């Protein structure tokens, strides 16, 4: 839905640039006036057995943007995604970041075995893609790519990435129904009752493997990777 509008904007901007004989070379994310000369298609597939992944947020950026840093605290926006599956703050913060070139929000959860396709466009000296979506039957687990380089892709070429599952470190891994959005429980809660730094996720235990109070069953267990991301440069 966004694309025709953007294309129209780009065409107008290009026409204006031609008429004025000026060359706008800004790469600062203001894609209303800079001409995106690279277009990327992302196919994102959920590879888990039984962990739906919340609507993902996808961000095209240069190397100055960082979705998160392992071992450091998650931003509140990332916490909102990791605990509640809400990508809106993450994407609005990204959109106001000068290192971000384009963003797109997933339309719905990606259920196991299914895929969603995204289109992103823009240019920068070092193009990277980041994305994140919550595993909705975890407390604060999210599958993510954190700055995967795609600037080298030739037109028509593809590259495949596999996204690991990370733990936002903002909520203890109780696996209690009341705290799992996938079980009808609470999403985002501003309190931080875990170690408060992002780690690789240790996985879920489930009620059959030593955590009697867990609302999860053995089908919710997962191993890495959780998402396949195929990036194809269209133009």
């Amino acid at each position, binding site marked *: 839905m966004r694309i025709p509008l953007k294309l129209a904007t780009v065409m107008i901007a290009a026409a204006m640039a031609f008429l004025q004989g000026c060359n706008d070379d800004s790469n600062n994310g203001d894609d209303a006036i800079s001409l995106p000369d690279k277009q990327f298609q992302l196919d994102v*597939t*959920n*590879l*888990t*057995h*039984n962990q739906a992944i919340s609507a993902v947020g996808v961000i095209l950026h240069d190397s100055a943007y960082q979705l998160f840093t392992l071992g450091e605290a998650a931003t509140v926006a990332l916490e909102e995604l990791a605990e509640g599956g809400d990508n809106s703050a993450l994407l609005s913060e990204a959109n106001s970041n000068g290192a971000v070139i384009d963003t797109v929000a997933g339309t719905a959860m990606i259920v*196991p*075995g*299914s*895929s969603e396709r995204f289109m992103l466009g823009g240019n920068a000296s070092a193009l990277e893609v980041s994305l994140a979506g919550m595993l909705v039957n975890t407390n604060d687990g999210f599958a993510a790519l954190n700055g995967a380089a795609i600037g080298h892709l030739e037109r028509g070429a593809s590259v495949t990435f596999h996204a690991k599952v990370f733990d936002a470190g903002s909520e203890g891994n109780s696996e209690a129904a009341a705290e799992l959005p996938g079980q009808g429980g609470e999403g985002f809660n501003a309190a931080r009752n875990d170690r408060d730094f992002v780690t690789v996720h240790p996985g879920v235990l489930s009620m*059959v*493997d030593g955590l009697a109070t867990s609302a999860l*069953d*053995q*089908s919710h*267990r*997962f*191993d*890495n*990777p*959780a998402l*396949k991301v195929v990036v194809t440069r269209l133009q």
Partner: protein
Amino acid sequence: MKKQLSALLTLTVLASTPVMAQDINIKLTNLTNGLYFTPLLVAAHDVNTHLFMEGSSASVNLQKMAEGGDIRGLLSDLQVVSGDVVENPAAGQLDPGESVNFNMMTNDSNTHLSLTAMLLPTNDGFVGIDSLELPTSAGTYTYYLNAYDAGTEANNEVINGGDGQGVLGIPADPGGNAGTGGTGLPATENNMTVHIHRGNLGDDNASGGESDLNNTVHRWLNPVAKLVITVN
């Protein structure tokens, strides 16, 4: 149990050698603690061939490999597309911690590599790589492989000799560490496409419980295999 397994093994090594293009060496290591790889199928093929694809339903021939270790169907699929095939290079199963090393001559048009082997004991778990673009410059290249679930059989974790297509159950535990009398984990398959295996659950009850698998032996985390390709 071992008898059943050996019935699956075929000992021929087919390395077709048409127009020589590339001479590569392959070393594959089983990185698990207690999982056995059934006879490996390794092939160089064209860019359009896939033995499996993540997020897509398994073919019947992939199902036969993943549920029973039978690679004959996948082998004939590869022969149809003139793949350069190495069948069962370890001459049987590849044990935990063991490696197999072999050479391949690949035809010009066979630019991609695929590999599969069933993981025992699992219901329909396999180690694999789907259509890896072969490096062409001389050198040594290392890849780590994941365990997949073919999505064709529920992981009930009961060892009953069930193999092949559509028989619920695990063929065997070659290591002899499994129990008996498991009543079976829920027989539901939530993701019926090829996906990342969630791992065996197992339990600590050797003569009952739900699972016949041993939770101190039969678990793993990815990666489950190391693949080293040397281009000469």
